[in-house]
């Protein structure tokens, strides 16, 4: 494998990592700040993709679709919070897992009833439809560069909100000691509701951004949810910075592992066995990395101090 190809693969890895970060950011906020396990985060991502695709088709514009998805997913997140999640904050993790799993079943079935079972598509906007030639015969789609930029901007915005604003301060304080913040006269319930709605909106944004390159179909969030949990566990639960670093790490390990493992295995095995063993090893790789990191840092790379 030559250097150009390796660089291209590294870029691909970073880009996949950014996409993972967009999903994991909302998850780590809700999990870390509210100590709430929200398995339904993946379906909120799916909902963002569906709403984005539908609204883009209705308005005839990708940009309106994306823009309208944000308030729509925010509203839906708040509705879910009001109907289901707020009754679970005091309960243990098992109840939360069961209830949010129920939400997954309900919404996966729901989108099927509303949108049908066939996958949908969201067109790439005209402005971003081209590509940049990065190596012979291969275009790097402009839209993927847009995802990179959107991910970095989201990371910056989140950092600013959590570290530099009054609401962010309250959120961090609430995470450390909710009863104390409440005693100081802050409506902690409303704060949590805001965090939750914001997390849902982030997931929806990620879904709408991913819709032009990935298939929009029922259950599309389920695979990504597992990776998102890997990311937040490696990064340290509740840490946005950790989620960012871990998402890039997972994206890189996943992509480079997939492209190099079969070649690596060929040093030891005959080609056909190497291909299959390599493929199997590559899909295990991120979990091996996660296990290794947790062995040395059980609370993740950037644990949140309590």
């Amino acid at each position, binding site marked *: 494998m030559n250097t150009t190809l390796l660089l*291209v693969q590294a870029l691909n890895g970073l880009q996949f990592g950014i996409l993972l970060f967009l999903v994991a950011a909302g998850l780590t906020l809700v999990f870390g700040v509210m100590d709430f396990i929200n398995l339904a985060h993946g379906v909120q991502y799916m909902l963002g993709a569906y709403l984005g695709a539908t609204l883009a088709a209705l308005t005839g514009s990708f940009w309106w679709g994306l823009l309208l998805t944000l308030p729509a997913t925010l509203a839906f997140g708040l509705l879910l919070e009001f109907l289901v999640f707020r009754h679970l904050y005091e309960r243990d993790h098992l109840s939360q897992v069961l209830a949010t799993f129920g939400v997954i079943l309900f919404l996966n079935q729901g989108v099927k009833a509303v949108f049908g079972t*066939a996958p949908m598509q969201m067109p790439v906007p005209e402005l971003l439809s081209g590509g940049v030639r990065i190596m012979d015969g291969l275009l790097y789609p402009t839209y*993927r560069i847009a995802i990179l930029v959107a991910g970095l901007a989201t990371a910056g915005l989140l950092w600013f909100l959590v570290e530099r604003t009054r609401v962010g301060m309250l959120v961090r304080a609430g995470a450390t000691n909710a009863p104390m913040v409440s005693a100081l006269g802050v409506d902690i319930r409303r704060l949590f509701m805001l965090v939750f709605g914001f997390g849902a909106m982030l997931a929806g944004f990620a879904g709408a951004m991913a819709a032009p*390159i990935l298939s929009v179909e029922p259950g599309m969030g389920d*695979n990504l949810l597992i990776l998102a949990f890997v990311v937040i566990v490696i990064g340290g639960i509740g840490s946005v910075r950790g989620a960012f670093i871990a998402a890039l790490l997972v994206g890189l390990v996943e992509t480079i592992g997939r492209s190099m493992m079969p070649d690596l295995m060929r040093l030891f095995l005959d080609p056909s066995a190497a291909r*299959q063993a390599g493929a*199997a090893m590559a899909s295990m790789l991120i979990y091996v990395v996660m296990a290794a990191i947790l062995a040395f840092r059980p609370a993740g790379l950037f644990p949140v101090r309590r």
Partner: protein
Amino acid sequence: MAFQIPAFRRRTLLATSTGLLAAPAVLQAQGAPIKVGLVAVQTGPQAALGTQLRDGWMLGMRQLNNQLGGRPVETIVIDDELRPDVAVTKVRAALERDRVDFIVGVVFSNILQAIIRPVTEAGTFLISTNAGPSTFAGRGCNPYFFTTSYNNDQVHSVMGQAAQDAGYRRVFLMTPNYQAGRDAMAGFKSRFQGTVVDEVYVPLTQLDFSAELARIASLRPDAIFTFMPGGLGVNLVRQYRQAGLANIPFLSTFTVDEATLPAQGEAALGFYSAASWAPNMDNPVNRRFVSEFEAAFNYVPATYAAQSYDAANLLNSAVRRVGGNLSDKNALRAAIAAADFQSVRGPFRFGVNQYPVQDFWLLQVARRADGKFQTETVRRVLEANVDPWAGECRMPGRI
């Protein structure tokens, strides 16, 4: 799938009064309805295929006034949820409680593997309208089992032959890392004589193909061959087009079809597929099927629908031939094997292993005048093709 979601248990189209179902066989006279269990996945990411399969059968029944050979029919839709254990439980219930006369349908081979023994050991005919694994085509052939689709290996080998005919020398192969994927690669290579520049196996949960696309660009093959069913194929096709690789011919099986084309759209234009049927086939039976299907369900039918529609007409011809009497299994089996019906594919007959002997076509994705996308026939690649396993089948003459 790593993250299987158990779906709601539900039975659609339940029989009206369950009390009657346990009635003794005496009551099941000629006037009693024929019960058909239609196994079609209705939940999970692959539900679109099950919907196609169900709608194809339903259209056939509608055109037949909901009768098979003059006897009224009751169709019980069984959602296998793409979980073999669930499929077995529900199919057993259909056999023992509902006493179905036929089991029809089944999209996926692993579901078929799970239900074939319970169904055939109960002396019930099983008509697969999609899954056609090699397991039951050769030594494992079964007098109670028919399929109106094909043997999976045939479809992949059609693409191998097409690549060979086109004079491609260097081909890149890519597939998900599971049994059907490995079978696809073997099927392709059974007829392709050129060089395989690389063979890539991706996880079934793959979302982003950019690593593989970079590899394809660096190897510059004459063509790629892939088997990427469902959402995997949607992702691959769109990303392949976006990466500017579409100048490398895209040969595929079960990757671009009418079930995925609405989501792939223009990205799939000009990509190749292989099948024994396409919506544009020009014969009166097919024209009527496609136009009435689209009028009824408002989407373009895929092979899943066409093969189920054929199964409805096949069973109609068989029940008529035996005069509505389903109790003589040997006569019924001979009547099904006669395949005395007009298939949407044109010529159709069953081989010794009760798999079809039929033509296979190279297909290409095209845009129709109304803006919708469909696969269209390019040329016939294999004629009256018998699957490679039929020779190993020792089919008993009588049941």
